[in-house]
């Protein structure tokens, strides 16, 4: 057993990381699906979209051959509508609410139709929004992730000049760095960021990290308002013995490397344990398998009923051949020569419901041991507690506290996205960015 990279041929990598939700091949196929839509009033799909995309309208516009109008409808509510069509867990959002489910019929393929319209808009570089005249106001946005980009786009539309400070070398945030490559490719993410920036009035300064290269005080001084879309940081520590051994990796880092360095460069073990059962855990497990790991096992301390990922996501992992062990909590990682050899887990049982309403796992005292050479930690991410505390921003264990959806305790400083909610979907961050922009526009007396 050993960790190694370059396990597969170029063709195998390409096949393993091919688009998991392929687009409609033809306009006819999209039309058939668009015409299935009932065009509901006050539609459940729209109400189930965190950004409130007018789904029946954009689908109707595909059916009437008004693709430009369709893309405009989508982007009006969600400027990352193209990316969201690929990464949203639609089974628990729009498609999950489609009224066809109540007829025991397949729901409308909303995501696929959304992809159809938005890809055409991106490919044609249709700039569907025109900036209003300059207001003379300047806003700094920290983080070029979904929240920051969404906020910046709304502000730019309203005639505000925006400067985004991004610590990475590319924009897109977790869309670019934190999602399985078979959902969105790095190239797509780059294209999407460029498309969003195409409106003009947004300058991005890359490799600029808050607290290191820039300070909040500076930003406050130089801009009329500041929006913090700083996201969350590294994976939560397990706080168990052996966590420092070679072979214990952070899921976010693992996914980041796959996207930033390319498939052959990323080492993976023969036998991999993934701790957690959220979307990131699934993305890490499936990609470990697709990079050539022989055995991948997801370890989760609760049962299937409490899992944070959707059924669809779990099915992807299972279809990839990943194993799942429920009611197992990592107790220690054992190694030799500084390298991971075994993962010891406690057997859990369900106790009383906790604050989230889910029954909390209780240690039974029994343990079992798995032979593994790699452990991927995906038990949630930790907010930037130190950073935000340093700036005296109200927070709960690092999660920023906001009023009226976006205002922090510091005047002129606004926040949203994962930095506030602790880590949700891309689409939630996009909405947070819109809310932030609305609050900033009110604050600046624009509109």
């Amino acid at each position, binding site marked *: 057993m050993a960790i190694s990279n370059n396990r597969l041929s170029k063709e195998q990598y390409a096949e393993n990381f091919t688009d998991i939700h392929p687009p409609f091949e033809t306009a006819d196929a999209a*039309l*058939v699906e668009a*015409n*299935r839509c*009932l*065009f*509901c*009033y*006050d*539609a*459940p*799909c729209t*109400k*189930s979209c965190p950004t409130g995309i007018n789904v029946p309208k954009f689908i109707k516009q595909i*059916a009437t051959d008004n693709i430009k109008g369709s893309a405009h409808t989508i982007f009006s509510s969600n400027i990352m509508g193209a990316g969201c069509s690929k990464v949203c867990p639609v089974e628990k959002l729009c498609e999950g*609410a489609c*009224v*066809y489910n*109540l*007829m025991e019929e397949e729901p409308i393929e909303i995501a696929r139709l959304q992809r159809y319209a938005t890809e055409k808009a991106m490919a044609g570089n249709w700039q569907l929004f025109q900036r209003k005249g300059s207001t003379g106001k300047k806003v700094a946005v920290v983080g070029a992730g979904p929240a920051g980009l969404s906020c910046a786009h709304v502000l730019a539309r309203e005639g505000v000049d925006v400067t985004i400070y991004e610590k990475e070398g590319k924009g897109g945030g977790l869309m670019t760095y934190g999602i399985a490559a078979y959902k969105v490719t790095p190239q797509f993410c780059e294209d999407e960021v460029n498309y969003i920036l195409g409106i003009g009035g947004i300058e991005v300064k890359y490799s600029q990290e808050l607290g290191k290269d820039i300070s909040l005080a500076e930003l406050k001084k130089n801009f009329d308002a500041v929006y913090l879309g700083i996201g969350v940081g590294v994976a939560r520590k397990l706080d168990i013995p052996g966590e420092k051994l070679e072979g214990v990796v952070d899921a976010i880092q693992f996914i980041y490397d796959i996207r930033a360095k390319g498939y052959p460069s990323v080492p993976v073990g023969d036998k991999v344990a993934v701790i957690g059962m959220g979307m990131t855990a699934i993305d890490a497990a499936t990609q470990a398998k697709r990079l050539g790991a022989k055995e991948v096992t997801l370890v989760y301390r609760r049962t299937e009923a409490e899992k944070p990922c959707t059924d669809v996501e779990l099915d992807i992992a299972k279809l990839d051949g990943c194993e799942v062990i429920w009611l197992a909590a990592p107790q220690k990682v054992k190694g030799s020569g500084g390298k991971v050899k075994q993962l010891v887990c406690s057997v859990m049982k369900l106790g009383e419901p906790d604050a989230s309403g889910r029954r909390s796992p209780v240690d039974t005292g029994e343990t079992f041991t798995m032979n593994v050479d790699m452990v991927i930690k995906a038990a949630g991410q930790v907010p930037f507690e130190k950073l935000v505390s340093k700036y005296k921003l109200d927070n709960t264990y690092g999660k920023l506290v906001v009023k009226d959806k976006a205002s922090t305790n510091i005047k002129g400083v606004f926040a949203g996205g994962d930095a506030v909610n602790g880590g949700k979907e891309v689409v939630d961050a996009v909405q947070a960015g819109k809310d932030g922009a609305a609050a900033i526009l009110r604050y600046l007396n624009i509109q």
Partner: protein
Amino acid sequence: MADISSNFLGIKSPNPFWLASAPPTDKKVNVLRAFEAGWGGVVWKTLGSQVKNVSSRYLAVNFGAKKMMGLNNIELISDRPLDLNLKEIKECIRLFPDRAMVVSLMADNDKKSWHELIRKVEDTGAHGLELNFGCPHGMTERGMGAAVGQDPEIACMVVEWVMEAATIPVITKLTPNVHSVVPTGRSVVKAGTNGLSLINTIQSVTGIDLDTFVPNPYVAGKSVFGGYCGPAVKPIALKMLTTISQDEITNKVPISGIGGVSTWKDAVEFMLLGASNVQVCTAAMNYGFRIVEDMIEGMNNWMDEKGFKTLDDFIGKSVEKITHWEDLDINYHHIAKINQDKCIHCGLCYIACEDASHQSINLAYGKPYNTYTVKEEECVGCNLCKLVCPVNECITMEEHRVAPEYLNWIEFQKRGLPLNDH
């Protein structure tokens, strides 16, 4: 099993499904395939003057994902040599002696041409003639087709010529491109036609190419009005058929129903409104001759279910059900009811009623599913909600009579009852 054999003016066919005079019946190879598929009869594509066709010829109106809700054509009468058509008609009759062979005719506008054409066609052994007084394009400019059917006097004259020569049953096909089909219908019945058929196609423009601005169908940068047919025209055909079935002169002769017949249900509807048989074209052009299989079985099963032994048991049964507005019972009232177990919360009933009818549906907000209920006191019973609902039997109309007795508009006025009270 019911007996669906048909006898139209003595022309017998194993079922009442004939193919209308059109491209599917223009030559032996098609007609033999149609008979093999089970069609009861054909009306051979119109024979007459020498013509020359153009390209293109057809265009359609689609509805959503559904293709060919309506079809439009600018094809003329048969453009094959007359002798070849006559020879093939004869062969088809010989190979399928139990099927109806009616030949559509449109001679030049003189008695001699008609007599000559009738003699030649009768020599084939054909069972009947259908006079094409309906074709709305190409031939009208030459004083034929709809130009004849639109003028009762000319139609009368031509039928009189025909009846002088014909020894087999004559059916006159009526054009719908008139304000009423009854005047020409009456005129040709008086002139002696043995039967009527309707409708022919309706003049139309099916659409325009938004890049070239040329309407359809495209012929070298120009277009013309074409004849519209298919499912879209069925309601118009049924209305015109009803006027013929209810007129005391025209209802003395048998009627062959035409206009968007695609299924056994359509056929039954035409026959309930007085057609003795039906003619089909667009559905066959869309799907081929095989559609007749279900038409035969479907009608048979329906007749068995209803206890009808022969076609005559139900032909014309609905004619008297269509009345004048002032005879309708004003005391009849029904109210929509939404079955909450079946409702899928699409909101289509709500928005249709709210924006376009009587604001009679209540919306109780829910996330993501709203609840919709009928405000009974507001509902006028218009049916709109039921029509837009995608779930079968989810919205039903429940009878709530205003009063038990029948009350029509005339009586209502006499009694001085309140008007404009909703």
